[in-house]
């Protein structure tokens, strides 16, 4: 089998991610074993050779992302997959990929932290690390799938965004979504949008500026490209003391994402305009909202939700719209209030924000627990 045929399958999340990567055009994977992400490496090690690609296990997570970045500069799409401890090690190269405008996809299948934490159990504690983990002024694109189908669609989307904006994109999955099995439908190839990076014209020299997203050459094509993680001008030449060059570069790198935050924002919503209680949720936790909302409405509590597929850039406008109609917004998370404060900031006093948190042991927030919270803070008619 070259690429997965359009059909209905019963796949694990990590498997859906790996097959989606191949469909998106990924031809290089480098990784280091870690629970609960290893199935992505195992699946791609088996599958990439079928499409002429390469998968290699490196000596650590730093080397893994380093090899991915090298591969990307050969003009190929490349990815790695890890979990919290490995994601911490990758922060160095995430900043490098941002600074050098290297498209690549980093999958973080979240488990319970800090540190080694509970390796086999689900958590959502890396939300802030995914946004702020590396040093310096930077912006991140972080996607959050909540089903096997979405592991598929958001993996393709991650590659598309990486290629479009020339930057590392993080697929922030979690142990539940990565390990469970569900029905998944692979659509017809022609209905799947695939974006490829913009290549330079012969003779072009500015690969790091003069337009919002500059064209990206590959090594070995005669462009004599100079790639550096140090501050550089539009030709890639290091400029380690000039404030103007630094501002121009780093402001452009941030603006190319922030100016397109609305386009990048991806979410599902229900009853946002007319709810008393709003829920903002993402990832595995958001799997509880459907049943809870249905039952709350049966009790006469007008309830709506926003299910975030893009965590960063944070879709503030969307949240503000919910805060305009809802009296209260509940933010259930398997961490100690990481998105909560973002919601509170976006709501800006228009609605009261209430957190619902659970950490450890991989225990999910159940629909019953969410319903209990809705009933506790909402008014039944």
């Amino acid at each position, binding site marked *: *089998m070259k690429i997965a045929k359009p059909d209905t399958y019963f796949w694990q999340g990590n498997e859906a991610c790996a097959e989606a990567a191949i469909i998106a055009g990924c*031809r*290089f994977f*480098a990784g280091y074993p870690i629970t609960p992400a290893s199935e992505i490496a195992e699946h791609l090690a088996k599958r990439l*050779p*079928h499409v*002429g690609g*390469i998968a*290699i296990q*490196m*000596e*650590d997570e*730093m*080397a*893994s*992302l*380093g*090899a*991915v*970045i*090298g*591969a*990307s*500069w*050969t003009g*190929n799409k*490349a990815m790695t997959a890890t979990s919290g401890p490995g994601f911490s090690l990758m922060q*160095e*190269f995430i900043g*490098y990929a941002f600074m050098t405008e290297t498209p690549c996809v980093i999958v973080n299948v979240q488990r319970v932290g800090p540190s080694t934490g509970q390796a086999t159990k689900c958590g959502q504690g890396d939300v802030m690390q995914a946004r702020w983990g590396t040093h310096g002024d930077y912006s991140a694109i972080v996607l959050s799938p909540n089903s096997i189908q979405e592991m598929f669609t958001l993996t393709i989307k991650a590659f598309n965004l990486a290629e479009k904006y020339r930057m590392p994109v993080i697929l922030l999955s979690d142990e539940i979504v990565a390990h469970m099995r569900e029905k998944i439908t692979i659509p017809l190839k022609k209905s799947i949008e695939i974006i490829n990076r913009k290549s330079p014209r012969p003779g072009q020299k500015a690969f790091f500026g003069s337009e919002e997203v500059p064209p990206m050459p590959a*090594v*070995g094509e*005669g*462009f*004599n*490209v*100079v*790639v*550096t*993680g*140090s501050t550089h001008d539009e030709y*890639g*030449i*290091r400029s380690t003391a000039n404030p103007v060059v630094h501002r121009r570069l780093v402001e452009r790198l941030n603006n190319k994402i922030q100016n397109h935050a609305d386009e990048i924002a991806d979410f599902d919503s229900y009853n946002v305009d007319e709810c008393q209680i709003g829920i903002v949720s993402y990832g595995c936790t958001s799997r509880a909202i459907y049943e809870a909302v249905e039952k709350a409405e049966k009790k006469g509590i007008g309830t709506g939700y926003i299910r975030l597929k893009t965590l960063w850039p944070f879709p503030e406008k969307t949240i503000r719209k919910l805060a305009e109609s809802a009296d209260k917004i509940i933010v259930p998370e398997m961490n100690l209030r990481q998105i909560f404060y973002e919601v509170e900031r976006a709501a800006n006093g228009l609605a009261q924000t209430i957190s619902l948190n659970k950490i450890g042991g991989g225990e999910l927030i159940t629909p019953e627990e969410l319903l209990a919270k809705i009933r506790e803070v909402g008014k039944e008619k």
Partner: protein
Amino acid sequence: MTENFSIRKYLRDLKMPFCPGCGIFTVISTFLKTAHELGHEDLSKFVFCSGIGCSAWIPSPHFIADSIHTPHGRSIPVATGIKLLRPELGVVVFGGDGDIVGIGLSHFIHAARRNLDILVIMVNNMIYGMTGGQVAPTTPFKAKTTTTPYGNFEYPLDAARLAVASGACYVSRWTTAHSDELKDSIKRALKMQGFRFIEVISQCPTAFGRRVGFKDAGEMLKWFKENAISIKQAEGLSEEDFARKIVVGEFIQRRRPTLIETMHKTIEEAQKEVEKN
């Protein structure tokens, strides 16, 4: 052959940041002379990778070529991704001792183990020069540095022997006082396949030499010349005498299937299997 030749044709017209007397100038000119003697009109058949430190600035941005200047110690992983997907390109890594066998040591060992088809040229100045002269894993025992003000209480690493033990196909060590031998060595390495490692003992008069009693770069070169011994001469030396000497020469030259060869063979077989089914 070199009468009307200037290495400038390979270099961008930029001011070089290296201190007067730095050994890096010798490494740059020797490498580029070798490229010229091998018939390279330009450097388009190469990709250069380097990490952080003075030596990492050898190719980036000075060489008119594709060059990737990576985070500290991570040039070899980036070179891995490039070489695996563009095996026809000559991937050359430049780095200092701190970069290659300090922070990047694990990548160095693993690249030699898997016989990644690259040439690593390590400029060993025995110190962290760019940051002002801190102790390195290669600093001689008892040497005073800014972070070992009472003398270094650790023993230095023998990177060349480590490369041999890890599986490298070609390993040599020279000093900046051996530019002819270094040129022959680079030439030989560029013609070979597999993991190739050349260590160049180099003078850092600014952050090392003057702190350990050398007046200038010339004195350091004299020290290199006077203390360099061949691999054969080093046999049977006491540990104490050995520590004072610089062993130069070719440590190994061998043929092993490279990572590119074993990987592509495996993939081709896998694809044949797919076609059969």
